[in-house]
């Protein structure tokens, strides 16, 4: 009960803070137009673009996941023995597919 009251209290406080600090949404049409130095747009702003850092994200996750699994693995490696070694081998093999894909996409090329 107490937890619920605290949670609700914080939610209401956060909501009040947001209401108090957000600017009024009363901008006129010419004010809310994008700034183009007096110019105008030709097409709508909704568009798709290539998220280029995604290969970097892929490599980051591959190496980070490897480390997350390796720490607990290192603790039990001596007691589990060859079974643990085989499991880690399989895990690294799967992760390296991601790294190879990143390589093909040119993430290791210095630009």
């Amino acid at each position: 009960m107490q937890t619920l009251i605290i949670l609700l209290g914080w939610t209401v406080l956060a909501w009040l803070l947001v209401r108090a600090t957000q600017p009024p949404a009363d901008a006129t049409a010419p004010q809310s137009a994008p700034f183009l130095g007096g110019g105008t747009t030709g097409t709508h702003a909704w568009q798709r673009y290539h998220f280029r850092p995604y290969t970097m994200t892929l490599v980051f996750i591959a190496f980070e996941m490897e480390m997350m699994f390796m720490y607990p693995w290192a603790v039990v490696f001596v007691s589990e023995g060859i079974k643990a070694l085989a499991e880690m081998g399989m895990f690294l093999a799967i992760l390296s597919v991601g790294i190879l894909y990143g390589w093909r996409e040119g993430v290791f090329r210095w630009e």
Partner: protein
Amino acid sequence: MRLSRLASRAPAPVFGAIGPGWQVAVERLLARSGLRRALTPRDAGILLVAGDMPGDAAEALGRVHDQLPHPRATLRWTVSHETADAVADRIVASWRDLGAIDEADLLPDQPPNEWKGVGPHGQGGKGMMGGTPYGRPMAMTGEDIRDGLQLDRYTARIGPFAPMLPPGLVLEVTLQGDVIVAATVQHPPFAQPVDADAPELCAARMLTILGLDGPARRAIHGRRPGGIWVRGAVPRGLGGIEGAGDARDRLAAFLGGDRAAVTAPDLSELLPGLEWSEAMLVMASLPPSAILRAARLPEAA
């Protein structure tokens, strides 16, 4: 009340709308202490309209005026015998009691285009493509010039009061993400006096694009801009022009006090392939007279 008085002691943020022949005067004026050159109207409290604006720029000027947040004030500087000191005093005085001045919008409070869509979001087309919500077509796909992916192309007209381009220049650019795929000149820049090509002003324009406001201000005052190896901030090989080196060489020449003699490049060939920030750096590395000649090239042909 006390807060607004405290705010009025800060340097006055001025957005300069520069007319024919006034570029040098305004650039030198806004480098004074007590004034600050705002690079977007949203950051400004005062709109300085310098020179006699041609009739075809009036609508664009209205758009820029309406984008200043309230409270705002417009000052005109059209008489060439009014000294920069007098104008600076007028600006600071308006900035001090901005709360009492405030101006209403010049343009009517209507969306620039009518709502024409069908469907819940007015997209009007199939799936995520096509349609003309608010009277503007959706961006359609085209081949990315880097790797041939089919990506959306966004078209906008930039200018004539874009602070990173010479005053008067209207560029129609088509972008994929932030890469320019096409650029055409819609209106050439306003003619400016020969002083606009002065190396310290050209260097200051590049430094402003690089985000180095302090060095830019010192350069305009004719002092050493300071900063360690400033030209290293410009990538090598950017915006190379036959006989005038690349943008880094030109910045080095400006900092060394040389007037770079640049043949007018073809802007519609120079800009495509560059990212937006690189393109603006390249534009800033060209003296205004070279851009004026380049913008008039298609007319001559």
